């Protein structure tokens, strides 16, 4: 009866010696190997059942719950010594949350970081999908504050579980119907509810509607982590992601006619507004994806240099 315990101690997975983090005091990726294994199992389930919210034993992380603890657990559970990490918040590599999380990932693993998707393999994000097209090399980890898309129509968790189990989404449709009746347009902003693989409705984290179409039949794997609510769900590559919309009411993304990025002049990226300091100053727009914006600007200034920065 004692052997399993001893065996567990002896079997405890340790990072391989040549890993960049072998000199660190903490375990590679901060979490102990059992925890990582457990989280990976949840991820595998999530990939196997696209859109299903897999409950998992979310660990307390060195960031507050609601600050990306779910995304961080996913990243740390799947990160390997040869990964290159990019972390963004609102599309910005320099956002405070992005900096904090990137520091934790890099310092606990020793892996290199990048701001360019081209060079990255693991991209953790809060509220955006990078403008660059992502592909098979990329795993996108999205931080999810509220994973339950149906919470607005139902509070009882037992009933919520039943609704998902039976694909009973009529009340979600009713809320969209009521929205359109009352307001003339569908007023959902970010985190638009989508049907994944024709089966489960998910909350697309609070990414803007602009980003939603890029989840549809994507080439990359998207993993959604909600640490506080202890859920992981996934959109595997080449999976249908359809925003819930009526056949005769087109899905609308955020577009402001005439707006362009003041820095790179782009009209084809997701723009955020910089309000003017005074009432008279009309303000301006900039790309939310700061790295894409920088490269776009360089591309315009030095067309000969090509795509890479």
């Amino acid at each position, binding site marked *: 009866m004692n052997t399993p*315990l001893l065996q567990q101690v002896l079997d405890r997975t340790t990072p391989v010696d040549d890993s960049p983090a072998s000199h660190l005091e903490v375990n590679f990726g901060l979490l102990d190997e059992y925890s990582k294994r457990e989280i990976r199992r949840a991820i595998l389930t999530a990939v196997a059942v696209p859109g299903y919210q897999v409950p998992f034993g*979310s660990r307390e992380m060195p960031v507050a719950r609601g600050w990306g603890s779910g995304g961080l657990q996913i990243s740390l559970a799947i990160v390997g010594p040869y990964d290159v990490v990019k972390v963004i918040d609102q599309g910005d590599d320099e956002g405070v949350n992005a900096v904090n999380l990137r520091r934790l990932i890099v310092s606990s693993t020793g892996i290199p970081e990048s701001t360019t998707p081209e060079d990255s393999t693991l991209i953790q994000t809060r509220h955006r999908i990078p403008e660059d097209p992502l592909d098979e090399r990329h795993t996108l980890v999205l931080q999810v504050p509220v994973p339950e898309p149906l919470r607005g129509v139902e509070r*009882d968790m037992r009933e919520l579980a039943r609704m998902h189990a039976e694909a009973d989404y009529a009340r979600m449709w009713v809320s969209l119907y009521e929205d359109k009746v009352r307001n003339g347009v569908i007023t959902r902003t970010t985190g638009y509810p989508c049907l994944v693989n024709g089966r489960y409705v998910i909350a697309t984290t609070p990414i*803007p509607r602009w980003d939603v179409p890029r989840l549809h039949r994507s080439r990359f794997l998207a993993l959604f982590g909600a640490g*506080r609510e202890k859920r992981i769900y996934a959109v595997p590559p080449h999976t249908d992601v359809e925003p819930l919309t009526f056949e005769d009411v087109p899905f609308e993304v955020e577009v402001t006619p005439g707006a362009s990025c003041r820095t790179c002049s782009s009209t084809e990226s997701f723009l955020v507004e910089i309000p003017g300091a005074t009432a008279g100053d009309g303000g301006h727009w900039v790309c939310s994806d700061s790295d894409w914006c920088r490269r776009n600007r360089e591309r315009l200034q030095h067309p000969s240099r090509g795509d890479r920065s």
Partner: protein
Amino acid sequence: MGYAAARGGLKAIEAAERLVARERVLGESQWLESKQMIEKLRLAVDRVMGEGGLWDEHLAASALRQAEGDPIEAAHLLRSYRSTLPRLAYTTPVDVDDLTVLRRIVPAFRNPPGPQLLGRTTDYTGRLLDTDDETSQRTAAEKMAAFIEENVTISKAIDGDAEPTDIRQPRRLLDLLRDLDAVVDRRRTDDPEPFDITRHPARPPATRSARLATMARAETGALVNVWYRNILGPDGYLHEITLGEVRHGRLPVTVIHPLTGDPVSISDVRVTEVEAIEDLNGIDEDRGRFDVGYGLCFGHNEKKAIAMANLDIACERDKGRSFLEQSILLTTDGLDASGFLEHLKLPHYVTFRSMMERKAAIRQFQENT
């Protein structure tokens, strides 16, 4: 650029960290020692261990210091530290009858079997703020301590081993009530594995062990609030219990030695334990008997243990009819609630831009119709 406060990257963050670090050692006071906190701010340290779910007074004191006295933040530090530790062994089931009491009161009887032992408490002392200057306060306290040392023989009793077992391990009231057949018997005959809330999310409908574990780790204020809002508030699911037993004491913790296979005592933990007596009055309940709710948490934290015991029996009787269980499981964790609240401080300009766009769309629709 806008959002300068939330942007600025690594440099700004590092500057913020330096400010915190500097104030920790600067200022005119001494370095705050862990030992001092364990002895003098005992209830704060106990609370952090309870909410952090980790018994280690020194780590808890360190956390409290690092968190500048914020118990929720300190509990967070303990818990996230714990996340990095592999789980190497499980203790044997703790037998609460092994509790050596430091304090024990039985409000349900004037003369219960065993003592009414008040122990270290200010429950019965006037809440009078000492407004003397610090030096006078200190002098007075030192005098009092010296007097006690010379004239009163209670110091040994606190250790709990200088007195006969029946005083320090008194028979519990519940056993007496059971002998009188005055309590419904809900004891299970099977022995299911307790639900491990650190490995699986506890969601309604949950087992009793999941609810108890959640409450044991809950933020004290949150749990007291759930209790109170269910007594006085809009929900009103709760029925006020009679306290059968409130205990604070030391409990030995034992593991099986991996090599010898023998049980080895590895530590004593201090816990607060409460048994709450519930008067059954539902149509489908046995009006002729009582039922019992149970609470147990790390350290000396009577507020939490009492709320826990009352909520335990309330949940049992509610049988999932209301949102009580969901409230307990989902809303009482300090890390969850405060983390989510504080995340509002993070940049939300992508969301806000999306919202602004919809506002414009709605207004345009309104203008067109």
